[in-house]
């Protein structure tokens, strides 16, 4: 708690310092909107933070000032001299209180009513001179226990290290070109590993456990719910997930806002909850987890949910959407209206979740850092908000492509898929000169990168590759490029203003060979290329949310040819990346073929034909814990596979055959691969089957990975396959067809002693149950 208070004080101090000039300037020109806004933000922040701490005087003052300023912002009130002095009085008093806190004193009880009255429109109360109610700040400074470093300094360090890495790469290249002394190579190796270590630790100085953000939540929720006469239990998970400290700062406000909303508007009062047949105590689950290079933060409540119908009505009356449009909105699109400016289903404004600073701000804040907010809600059952944010801001995974012989990079986060222009599922058409690509029945605008850049491409149209892009908050489009190269992690730096002015680029970076590469801004290319994004803006954003949340029974797969020439498909999710290694890197060792990749040695699967003499391409497969390599000849295409799979008669490398892009392909069974190649011992004779309800997103998104990791094949309740185990939620009635059934409850405490359900976040108990269910059969 002490840390939090000192953080709060430091923040206030910083803002007060920055505000110093603003206040004086605002006094001179009370009409200045920008200044008004920055002062409003200050009192808003103070008010918000007082919610965590017990500073009633600070809260009362900042709340009163915020109210008055909100009136001015809304244009209902003029900023006259009296108001300005009153606000200044409040800010002075706040700064005195902060100073007292900083010196380690309590805020002395005092009377602020005069100041607060002075904020009222008709107040003719003279502003009392800032009284000495606060004890004189002690001159003896408190010795700091930690050092506060500016993020700027860390950034400089970070970029210095990045430069060092690039310089090292260049040196490495030079050394390769001019093979020298073994001693030099040895020294260089040492330097390399030191630099790598240093880069790691510098990166870590910027990383913070998300716990720092979460630790304040229980108290905040407790105080909020006490104020509102509600009972809320907070369940926090994944506090050990690490995130760039800058990102933590960026998501602090949006997260606080969402939680306030959930407690204030989402969770009902105990009486209402009992009436609705729920437990008196509302449950708020905040969880963080890492998924690839994204962090997912879920905020889930079991409150009343969002009334989508009312939201649509409000949107129509607020002219956010047309009535005719409203009829076509899907459920998800309706819910997403909550992110539109000026919409809120709350009928009254409360002290807790404010006015003006709404969900639209939450969304724009998250999108500014390259993240996404999604909402899912069932009326009467609860709401789930998901924040997806990238891990850091400086290193961007990107795909390098080339056009007319020049390389460019595209941020991977914007890439939806990559298809070949002459692939079976793709057709290209020209409508009045505009390109339209039809990819598996979906029509997307197509633009040629060469045209956008004004370059001449030597590659004929049908031989180009299409990169389907989905810029943040906009519609998809396909970009035709000459060639796709490689995935790279790039240290991106801002480009010079003259380059940014084109609107096409997001920054520059250096490739491994030391040559500069331009990083594209996908939204900018669409704009310059003339793709109209606005018209489908909303639909696209929603489609995106739909794509990530809905449980699809189609699994994306990578279609490839094996070394024996067989047409096979590999589930995309387990392919970490594609590597190319010299044939010499593959050697038998400890009873099986192994491949050396950098400094690791992986078991190698897929060697069912002759290995190529020089270079071998392989998938690097990852089950979350272990990796194996899988050699293949060539990648054919990306596609999806549905549920219609003809299972193989006996377990093996191929789990079944499915029609993919009109031709049969063998589906590689990753489980079998890992069981046979990665497992240290034992061979699983047959895979266990677990049935999960397909329509339960929690089960599909959160539970499924655990179940799969425990060795089960997951089927949905509609699949007619004999299951060894079924997992159901407590609420669902009836039995699932399975040898055994596990029921999960949402409540940590069992309802009675006989209750055999498992709390759904009790990982240990879940794993035990999964294991014992499996043991029954083996």
């Amino acid at each position, binding site marked *: 708690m002490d840390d939090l208070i000192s953080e709060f004080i430091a923040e206030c101090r910083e803002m007060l310092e920055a505000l110093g000039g603003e206040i004086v300037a605002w006094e001179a020109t009370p009409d200045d909107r920008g200044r008004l806004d920055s002062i409003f933000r200050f009192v808003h922040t103070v008010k918000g933070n007082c919610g965590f701490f017990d500073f009633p005087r600070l809260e009362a003052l900042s709340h009163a000032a915020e109210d008055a300023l909100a009136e001015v912002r809304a244009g209902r009130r003029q900023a006259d001299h009296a108001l300005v002095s009153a606000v200044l009085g409040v800010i002075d008093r706040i700064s005195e209180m902060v100073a007292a806190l900083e010196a380690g004193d309590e805020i002395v009880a005092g009377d602020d009513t005069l100041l607060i009255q002075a904020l009222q429109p008709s107040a003719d109360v003279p502003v009392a001179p800032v009284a000495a109610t606060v004890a004189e700040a002690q001159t003896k400074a408190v010795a700091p226990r930690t050092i506060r470093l500016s993020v700027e300094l860390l950034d400089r360090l970070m970029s210095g290290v990045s*430069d*060092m890495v*690039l*310089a090292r*790469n*260049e040196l490495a290249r030079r050394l390769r070109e001019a093979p020298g002394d073994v001693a030099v190579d040895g020294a260089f190796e040492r330097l390399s590993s030191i630099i790598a270590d240093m880069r790691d630790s510098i990166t870590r100085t910027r990383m913070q456990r998300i716990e720092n953000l979460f630790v304040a939540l229980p108290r905040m929720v407790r105080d909020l719910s006490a104020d509102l006469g509600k009972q809320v239990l907070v369940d926090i998970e994944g506090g050990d997930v690490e995130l760039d400290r800058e990102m933590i700062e960026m998501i602090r406000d949006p997260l606080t806002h969402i939680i306030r909303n959930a407690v204030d508007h989402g969770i009902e009062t105990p009486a209402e909850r009992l009436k609705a047949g729920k437990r008196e105590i509302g449950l708020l689950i905040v969880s963080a987890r890492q998924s690839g290079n994204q962090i997912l933060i879920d905020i889930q409540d079991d409150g009343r949910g969002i009334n989508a119908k009312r939201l649509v009505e409000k949107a129509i009356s607020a002219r956010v959407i047309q009535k005719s449009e409203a009829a076509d909105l899907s459920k998800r699109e309706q819910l997403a209206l909550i992110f539109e400016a000026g919409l809120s289903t709350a009928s009254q404004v409360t002290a807790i979740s404010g006015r003006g600073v709404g969900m639209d701000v939450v969304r724009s804040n998250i999108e500014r850092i390259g993240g996404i907010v999604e909402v899912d809600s069932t009326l009467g059952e609860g709401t789930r908000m998901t924040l997806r944010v990238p891990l850091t801001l400086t290193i961007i995974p990107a795909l390098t492509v080339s056009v007319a012989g*020049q390389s460019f990079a595209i941020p991977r986060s914007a890439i939806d898929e990559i298809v070949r222009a002459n692939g079976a599922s793709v057709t290209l058409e020209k409508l009045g000169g505009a390109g339209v690509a039809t990819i598996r029945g979906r029509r997307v605008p197509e633009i040629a990168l060469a045209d*956008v*850049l*004004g*370059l001449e491409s030597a590659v004929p149209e049908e031989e180009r590759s299409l990169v389907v892009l989905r810029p943040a908050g906009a519609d998809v489009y396909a970009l035709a490029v000459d060639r796709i190269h490689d995935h790279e992690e790039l240290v991106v*730096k*801002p*480009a*010079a*203003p*003259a*380059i940014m*002015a*084109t609107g*096409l*680029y997001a920054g*520059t*970076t*250096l490739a491994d060979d*030391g*040559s*500069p*590469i*331009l990083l594209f801004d996908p939204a900018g290319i669409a704009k*310059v290329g003339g793709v109209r994004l606005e018209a489908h803006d909303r639909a696209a954003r929603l489609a995106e949310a739909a794509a990530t949340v809905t449980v699809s029974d189609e699994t994306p797969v990578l279609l490839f040819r094996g070394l024996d020439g067989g047409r096979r498909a590999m589930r995309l999710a387990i392919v970490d990346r594609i590597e190319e290694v010299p044939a010499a890197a593959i050697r038998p060792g400890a009873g099986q073929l192994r491949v050396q990749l950098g400094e690791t040695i992986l078991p190698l699967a897929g060697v069912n034909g002759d290995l190529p003499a020089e270079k071998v391409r392989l998938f690097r497969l990852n089950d979350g814990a272990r990796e194996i390599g899988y050699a293949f000849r060539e990648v054919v295409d990306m596609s999806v596979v549905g549920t219609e799979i003809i299972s193989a008669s006996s377990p093996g490398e191929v789990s079944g055959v499915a029609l993919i892009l009109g031709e049969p392909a063998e589906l590689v069974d990753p489980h079998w691969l890992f069981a046979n190649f990665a497992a240290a011992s034992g061979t699983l004779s047959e895979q266990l089957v677990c049935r999960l309800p397909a329509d339960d997103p929690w089960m599909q998104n959160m539970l499924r990975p655990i179940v799969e990791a425990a060795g089960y094949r997951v089927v949905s309740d509609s699949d007619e396959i004999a299951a060894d185990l079924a997992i159901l939620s407590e609420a669902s009635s009836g039995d699932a067809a399975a040898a055994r059934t596990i029921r999960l409850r949402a409540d940590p405490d069992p309802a009675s002693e006989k209750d055999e359900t498992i709390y759904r976040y009790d990982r240990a108990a879940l794993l035990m149950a999964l294991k014992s269910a499996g043991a029954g059969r083996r």
Partner: protein
Amino acid sequence: MSKLLLIVTIAGERVALPAGAVESVVELDTLIQVPRAAPHVAGLSALRSRVLTVIDCMRSLELGVTDCSDGVREAAVVELDGHHYALIVDSVEDVVEALSDPQPVRAAMGPGWERVSEGMVETEEGPMLLIDVAALVSGVEAKAA
């Protein structure tokens, strides 16, 4: 006042750059084009793991286009607002001491020069035109906007 000046030749004319602003003089070999950028941006180049934005001074002065096709070009590297630029010049000659503060040039200069001029300085080698590096980097377009 003793200020050092770097004498370079741009479009056949000997002019002075404030030596303090110039970090180094380099020879550029490879240039990466920046499609759609302003014409005076000749491209990107790399210097010791830094990206340089290469400015064609002739183009910036509207005095023609530097021919970059023949390979190595000399350039002066300057830093401006945290970005590094390489200014392509015909040749780099010498560093001299400024013997006076910049004085306004009262005679009419060519339009390109007028825009980037900071005035005339006296040196041991006679009067020199002192160039405003920022104006050179921003080019004609920025001025018009």
